């Protein structure tokens, strides 16, 4: 074996090389970066690798995820990648897990079992989650991401360098509800409507929106509009039923699709037109006629002064890139993405890049609705949008284009809709290979504890300087994640109350007076789980409820926030009781010693504002500027962090950069650029 490892020993040195075989690595993600990274760490000689991914293999992965073959399509990425890679080094133990990293069994204790965590994720939500778990478990993390020719690697170590959430990430785009529901003006509005409103209404869970509307009425919203929405919801019941019932006879196979069409593109539009006020200063939509479009006799007569928006039944799929920055960001139509993909450059072009006529869209709508309805009848409970699920992509393309036609908005090709609705990030093997190589290097630095060598590294778009390396920044003192004090309790959530836990963690024993903790630690506290308030000094209704009844279970955190803002927040991770714990033993094991949250540094800014009140995601039509969240939108970070941290997201960024940022990475333009100008920089040794 000495021959096999000659290269690695020569370069890493015996000491580090010897340690690698004992090192336990958690690799989160077996996609583009994950495959490259797994190969690198297997060949380098890391001894124990746990590989976790919830996804299955798709054909569009094969241009870069080189551990997969065509025969592996639809199988677990983690399983196949582990199998392919383990053949290359018999001394490595790879444990694949096909699961979501956010599942409760992957709690703080579990994370603590690793020497290092390597992120190869593709979404903000999971990145934040792993970051927080690594902060709680105090495990070093290397974070990474790519978009086309751009990429970034960020080593993260609690208390020594910025964590992933020290720099606020741009929040995903949202649109006002009424823009989506009644007054779209751009292709993206129609695509969001089709993907996030119509699809769930027809193929999603049968949610009773009645109570929401009752609530809205109580709050004094426009009664007329609520009545209209009630009517709309009732009508959805009928079409939902039609989609789920067997087709009556051959001849009327398109009847369910036609029913849907008539409801959303005819009835609902007539309904909207009846509210004349809305159309005083904007062009009204035109109801579509199913039979006339099918017969090719339908003419869109819109009262348009310039007559070139939607005057004919032939599609204009590629005629517009829209006109607001919101769409631009989502569409990614910067110089290097969609521009490259316009059919003009492609000659023969690609089939799904062609423009669709109104008639094409109708037929596509009918055929995709039928395919989806058949799947419901075959036993699928719900179907939601998935960019790699052709039936849903066809449906969203057709429905969005039909709605666009009714509103005089240019249509989009299936190719473009896929990119806009699916938040597709262009990806190639080369960038992933570069990034994966850099991740291992940063991992070496972390394992060797040579913290002065750590760098934030960017792969950039500059022929004169492909890489830029930036020295690490100290943690943001106002960070709502890594500046908190982490602790862990082991408990049976069904047998322990909120008050028991909070008092226990704060050292307020049952036999001790509340004031006896010698003035150390917070006096009055608010308790949260994520963004839910569970108690505050003036509200103790939940104090005697069990954690389980409050849905605070294994893998979650209780946040104990000092009402006066003097002490750091305590994050209490909820762990399970040890397996050998006696059944009649205490339901709660407190950490020893108890956490001692430090006094906050004199805040650079005013006292942190408390987290916002709990919000429920509701689709009701509320105030006019109420916003509907994009379907994949991760929850917004607590307000206090967003307000305190420097705002780097405000400046204009080119689209690909923006894409990367939406995925949670901050791209700097040059190596010289610093994320913040902090006078009291802490040197990392």
């Amino acid at each position, binding site marked *: 074996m000495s021959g096999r490892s000659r290269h*690695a020993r020569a370069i890493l040195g015996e000491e580090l090389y010897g340690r690698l075989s004992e090192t336990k690595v958690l690799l989160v993600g077996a996609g583009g970066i994950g495959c490259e990274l797994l190969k690198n760490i297997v060949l380098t000689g890391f001894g124990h690798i746990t590989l976790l991914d919830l996804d299955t293999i798709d054909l569009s992965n094969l241009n870069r995820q080189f551990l997969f073959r065509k025969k592996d399509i639809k199988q677990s990425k983690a399983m196949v990648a582990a199998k392919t890679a383990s053949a290359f080094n018999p001394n490595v133990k790879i444990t694949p897990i096909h699961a979501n990293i956010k599942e409760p069994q992957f709690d703080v204790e579990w994370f603590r079992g690793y020497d290092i965590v390597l992120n190869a994720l593709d979404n903000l939500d999971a990145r934040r989650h792993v970051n927080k778990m690594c902060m709680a478990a105090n495990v070093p993390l290397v974070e990474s991401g790519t978009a086309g020719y751009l990429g970034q690697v960020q080593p993260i170590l609690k208390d020594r360098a910025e964590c992933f959430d020290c720099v606020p990430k741009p929040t995903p785009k949202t649109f006002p509800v009424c823009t989506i529901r009644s007054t779209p003006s751009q292709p993206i509005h129609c695509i969001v409507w089709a993907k996030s409103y119509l699809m769930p209404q027809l193929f999603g869970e049968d949610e009773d929106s009645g109570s929401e509307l009752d609530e809205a009425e109580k709050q004094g919203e426009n009664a007329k509009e609520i009545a209209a929405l009630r009517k709309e919801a009732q009508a959805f019941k009928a079409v939902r039923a039609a989609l789920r019932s067997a087709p009556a006879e051959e001849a009327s196979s398109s009847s369910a699709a036609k029913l849907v069409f008539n409801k959303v593109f005819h009835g609902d539009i007539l309904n909207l037109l009846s509210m004349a006020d809305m159309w005083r200063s904007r062009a009204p939509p035109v109801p579509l006629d199913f039979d006339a479009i099918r017969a090719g006799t339908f003419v869109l007569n819109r009262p348009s002064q*310039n007559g070139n928006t939607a005057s004919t039944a032939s599609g204009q799929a590629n005629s517009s890139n829209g006109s607001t920055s919101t769409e631009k960001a989502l569409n990614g139509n910067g110089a290097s993405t969609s521009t490259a993909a316009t059919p003009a450059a492609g000659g023969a072009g690609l089939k799904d890049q062609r423009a669709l006529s109104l008639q094409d869209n109708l037929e596509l709508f009918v055929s995709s609705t039928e395919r989806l309805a058949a799947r419901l009848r075959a036993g699928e409970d719900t179907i939601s949008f998935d960019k790699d699920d052709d039936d849903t992509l066809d449906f969203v*393309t057709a429905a969005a284009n039909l709605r666009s036609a009714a509103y005089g908005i240019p249509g989009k090709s299936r190719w473009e809709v896929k990119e806009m609705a699916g938040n597709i990030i262009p990806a190639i093997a*080369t960038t992933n290979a570069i990034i994966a190589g850099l991740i291992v290097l940063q991992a070496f630095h972390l394992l060797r504890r040579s913290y002065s060598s750590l760098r934030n590294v960017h792969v950039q778009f500059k022929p004169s300087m492909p890489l830029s390396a930036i020295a690490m920044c100290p943690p943001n003192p106002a960070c709502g994640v890594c500046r908190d004090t982490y602790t862990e309790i082991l408990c049976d959530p069904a047998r322990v109350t909120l008050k028991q836990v909070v008092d226990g963690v704060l050292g307020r024993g049952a036999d001790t007076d509340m004031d006896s903790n010698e003035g150390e630690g917070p006096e009055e506290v608010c308790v949260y789980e994520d963004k839910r308030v569970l108690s505050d000094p003036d509200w103790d209704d939940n104090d005697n409820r069990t954690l389980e009844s409050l849905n605070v279970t294994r893998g979650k955190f209780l946040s104990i926030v000092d009402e006066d803002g003097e002490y750091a927040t305590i994050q209490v991770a909820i762990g399970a009781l040890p397996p050998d714990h006696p059944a009649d033993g205490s339901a709660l094991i407190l950490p020893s010693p108890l956490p001692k949250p430090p006094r906050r540094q004199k805040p650079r800014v005013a006292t942190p504002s408390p987290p916002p009140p709990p919000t429920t995601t509701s689709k009701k039509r509320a105030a006019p500027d109420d916003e509907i969240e994009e379907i994949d939108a991760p929850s917004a970070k607590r307000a206090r962090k967003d307000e305190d941290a420097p705002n780097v997201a405000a400046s204009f960024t080119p689209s690909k950069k923006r894409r990367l940022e939406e995925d949670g990475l901050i791209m700097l333009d040059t190596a010289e650029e610093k994320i913040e100008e902090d006078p009291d920089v802490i040197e990392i040794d």
Partner: protein
Amino acid sequence: MSHKESQNIEQATTTVTTSQPDDKTRRYDRQLRIWAASGQAALESSRVLVLSSSATSTSILKNLVLPGIGHFSILDATVTTPADAGNNFFLHARESIGKPRAQEAVPLLRELNESVQGEAVFKDVKELLGTEQGRDWLTGFSIVIAHNLDKPTLEELSTLLWSNPNGPPLVAVRSAGFLAEFHIQYHEHCVSQTHSDTAPSLRITRPFPALLEWARSLDLQDMDPTNHGHIPFVVILVKLVDEWRQSHDGNLPKTAAEKKEFKSKILALKIKPDEENFDEAEAQAWRVWSEPAVPSDVQALFALPPLPSTSNAHTPEKHATFHALLDTLAEFTKDPSGPGTLPLSATLPDMKSDTESYVRLQNLYRQWAEVEKNKFKELFKAKHPQLADSANPEEVDTFVKNSHHLRVLRGKQWGAFDKDREAVANSLMMAPRETATHLGLSALTNLLSSDASKVTEDALRSEVQSIVGEGVDLPEELDAAIGEIARAPTADLPNMAAFLGGLVAQEAIKMITEQYVPLNGYCVVDLVDSWTGVIG
């Protein structure tokens, strides 16, 4: 629906569902969004030669096979050692040992993408360089990539490829431990699709007739208030420039005071304080005072001298059309009946407006861009009738569409930098870290040609000294570089191989697709400190 079925469904259903892409498009979906079908076609017709099947070489190839090059050949006369098998993912862990390395690697690489052809050639490149037939074979590729080739052989190969202006570019890669560099050798590389992020001119100060007409027809005082808040900023600026010129003898705002006055005129037109389109017009007013007729980068290309005759090269045939188009473009900007600028770009930026006005503006730009493109094509036909007949119409369209961002790179032969002592001395002052590392690697290449055991820090230092010339001070940075090189002169770490594999393949793809701007010179990599730089 499974992916295997998609083809059948496609064939079995109506024309509508054929909007679904075929398997190839689906496989390449994420990269087609980077380089489009034209880039993909270029990749698929390319033939790549790689010298050696080291971990680095196969990493490079992996990243070329995955996106779908047409064909690759690996030229390698060595057999697999245990060290090879331990760090090269494209060799079998046990069975490959003792067998020809390239022959073992090819099937594993081909497994990555069934549409790519590949072959192993179990020969020494020195042997091929020695015969006419061998030399012909070596020059018959789209691109040649060589990893850790010894100096005399690399010199001979680079001279062969350099002597033929139509020959393939040569990518010479050298790596040692955590240090590496690569150089791309080409006489000239022309790019029309640079995918630049800078926006083309909107021609606000040189409006085309339909745009000027729209601007002049607007009666800002007496129009619908909703429409007033939706006039695109372009139209507002065109109107104000027109009015300004009429009151300033045809001149634009020049002095700081004039510019300030111009801006205040914009804001004075607001009828409501929240009209964002006027705020945007003010913010974009800089376009009025810095809108060159031809961007300086493109102007410089018009004056580009022919390739130096000393290099024994003339314009490669494959660039003849590009140069004819460039010549036509220069003519277009000088044509008295033309706009005096580059052809109008149909691309509009994002702006505050309503859909109707935006689409109207977009259509005006599109229509006039078409008019100017046709004029350009007429000129092309008149100046270069033969090439205009034979040129691919798409190439012409692409050229015109991207005329604001054209690039022509002129390269150097591999090794030429090291022989130019003045250039090396300058580079040592400007970029000591990068240059020192490059010199260390050059010294290593020289030493390895004789005897690997001679690679000591002292030997490396004296070799560097002989490259730069006696008496030239060597920078401190050299110490770290030669320390690292002496520690692991020939080690090929999987990690470095992976990194280089990505970086080199990326540049090779840029060369093959003729999209994006590849680097020019030596790209030096230090993964101890995670930096790269380009010198030479």
